[in-house]
C-alpha cells in the first residue's frame, strides 16, 4: 500500500514477561485520522507508544515484529531523536512546562538547534495559529502556560508538537479532560491538521471516534480485533465483539 505512512507487521510487545500486544498488523494511511478504541487495558496506549518508541524507556520491554515509517524500519537503524521529532505525541492530561507560553513552543525547536529569535518568533506564531489558539494567547506570550485553561493548555501542547514540524501526531485521549466546547475545538483542529499530518488518536468516546476518524481500530486483550473504515465499524462491523463494544454492551 503506497498510501501507508506507518506499516505495522506482526507486532508483539512485552512488559517483562507480560505480553501486552499480540501479533498486531496495521496500515496507517497518510493524511488520515485513525482512531484506536477498546476497553481499558487492551493495549491502545502501549501500541501508540511503540510507534515512536516511547516504550523503549520502560525497563524490560521487548518488541518483536516490524514497524515501517515511510518504508523505513523504526526499530532498525533509525535515529530515535529524529523519529520522535517526526512522530510527535499529545498526552491525555495537558502537560505544559512550567514556563511561558512562548518558551513552551520554542522549547523543541531550540533543542533542535534553532537559536535565531526571528525564526523562533515565526515558529511560535505559526504553531499557535495552526493549533487554533493564537488569538487567545498572542497578547500574553510571556505569561506562564500553566495559567491557561485546560482546553487552552491542550491546544498549547498540540502547538508544541507542531513546532518541531512533525509528520505524524499521536494523541492519547487528548480531550478526555475537556468540556464539550474545548473538545469541539480540538476535534475541528484535528480535522484541519489532517491535511498536513497523519493522526492517530486513542479515544474512549465512541461518538468522537465516529466524528473525527477515517479508520477505526478496535483492540481487545492486546489483539487488534477489527480495523476498518470508521463508517463500517460503527454501522456494520464484522466482529460480534466489536459490535458489543461499540454498542456499550461489553463488560
Amino acid at each position, binding site marked *: 500500500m503506497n498510501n501507508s505512512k506507518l506499516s505495522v507487521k506482526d507486532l508483539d510487545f512485552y512488559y517483562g514477561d507480560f505480553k501486552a500486544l499480540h501479533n498486531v498488523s496495521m496500515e496507517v494511511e497518510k493524511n488520515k485520522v485513525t482512531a484506536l478504541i477498546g476497553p481499558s487495558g487492551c493495549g491502545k496506549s502501549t501500541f501508540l507508544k511503540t510507534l515512536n518508541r516511547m516504550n523503549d524507556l520502560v525497563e524490560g520491554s521487548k518488541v518483536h515484529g516490524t514497524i515501517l515509517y515511510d518504508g523505513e524500519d523504526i526499530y532498525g537503524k533509525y535515529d530515535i531523536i529524529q523519529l520522535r521529532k517526526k512522530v510527535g505525541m499529545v498526552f491525555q492530561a495537558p502537560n505544559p512546562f512550567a514556563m511561558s507560553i512562548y518558551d513552551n513552543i520554542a522549547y523543541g525547536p531550540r533543542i533542535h538547534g534553532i537559536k535565531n529569535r526571528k525564526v523562533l518568533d515565526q515558529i511560535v506564531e505559526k504553531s499557535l495559529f495552526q493549533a487554533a489558539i493564537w488569538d487567545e494567547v498572542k497578547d500574553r506570550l510571556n505569561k506562564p502556560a500553566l495559567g491557561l485553561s485546560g482546553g487552552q493548555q491542550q491546544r498549547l501542547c498540540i502547538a508544541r508538537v507542531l513546532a518541531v514540524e512533525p509528520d505524524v501526531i499521536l494523541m492519547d485521549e487528548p480531550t478526555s479532560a475537556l468540556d464539550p466546547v474545548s473538545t469541539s475545538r480540538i476535534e475541528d483542529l484535528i480535522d484541519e491538521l489532517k491535511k498536513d499530518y497523519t493522526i492517530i488518536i486513542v479515544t474512549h468516546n*465512541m*461518538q468522537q471516534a465516529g466524528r473525527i476518524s477515517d479508520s477505526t481500530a478496535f483492540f481487545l486483550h492486546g489483539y487488534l480485533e477489527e480495523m476498518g473504515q470508521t463508517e463500517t465499524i*460503527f454501522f*456494520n462491523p464484522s466482529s460480534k465483539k466489536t459490535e*458489543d463494544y461499540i*454498542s*456499550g*454492551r*461489553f*463488560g
Partner: protein
Amino acid sequence: MQTKSRIHFSNMMKELNEQILKMGIYVEEAMKKAVAALRDQNIELAEEVIKEDDRINEFELELFDKVSILLATEQPVATDLRHLTGAIRIISDLERAGDYAVHIAKGAKRLAGETYITPLQQIPEAADMARQMLKDALTAFVNSDEELAREVASRDDVLDKLHKKLIKKMLKYMNKDSEAEIEQAANLMFLARYLERLGDHITNVCEWVIYSKTGKHPEL
C-alpha cells in the same frame, strides 16, 4: 466477557418493539373489520374502521418521537441504530396499511346497498392472508428473524395471484350491458388493488427486517 449492560436502553428497545407489535394489531384489526364490513355490507362496522384510523395515525407519530428521542439520548450504533431507523420506516408502512383499511371501509359503505354480482371470494381470502403476513413480518422484526422475513415476503406472490384472478373475473363483467354491474366490478377491482398494495408494504417491512439485521438493502 459479556455481562448485562445498558439495561435501560434494552428495556426501551423492548418497549418499542412491543408498541410496534401493538400498532400492527390495530392495523390488522382495521383490515379485518374493513373486509368484514365489505363482505357483510355493514355500514356501521365500516364507519368504525374510518373513525379508528386516527388512533393508528397518532400511534405512528408517537412511535416516531420515541425513536427520535432514543437516537438523541442513547446514540445507538450498528445493529441498534439500524433497528431504529428500520422501525421508522416500518411504522410508516403500517400507517399506510391503515389507510388501505380505510379505503376498503369507504368502499364497503359505497357498495352496502347493492347486490353483489358474484359472492366475494378473493378479497376476503387475500385479506386473511395479508393479515397473517403482517403479523409474521412484525414478529420477524422484533426477533430480528431474517429467515422468517424472507419467507413472509415470498408469500406476496400468492397475494398477487389472487389479485390477478379477481381482475380476470371482474373483467368479464366489463363487457356487460348493465352499467351498475360494470361500476361494481370496477369498484371491487379497486378494493382488491389496495390489498395488493398492502402486500407490497408488508414486503417493505420484511426488507427493513433484513436491513436491520444485515446492514444491506435486499430486493425482495
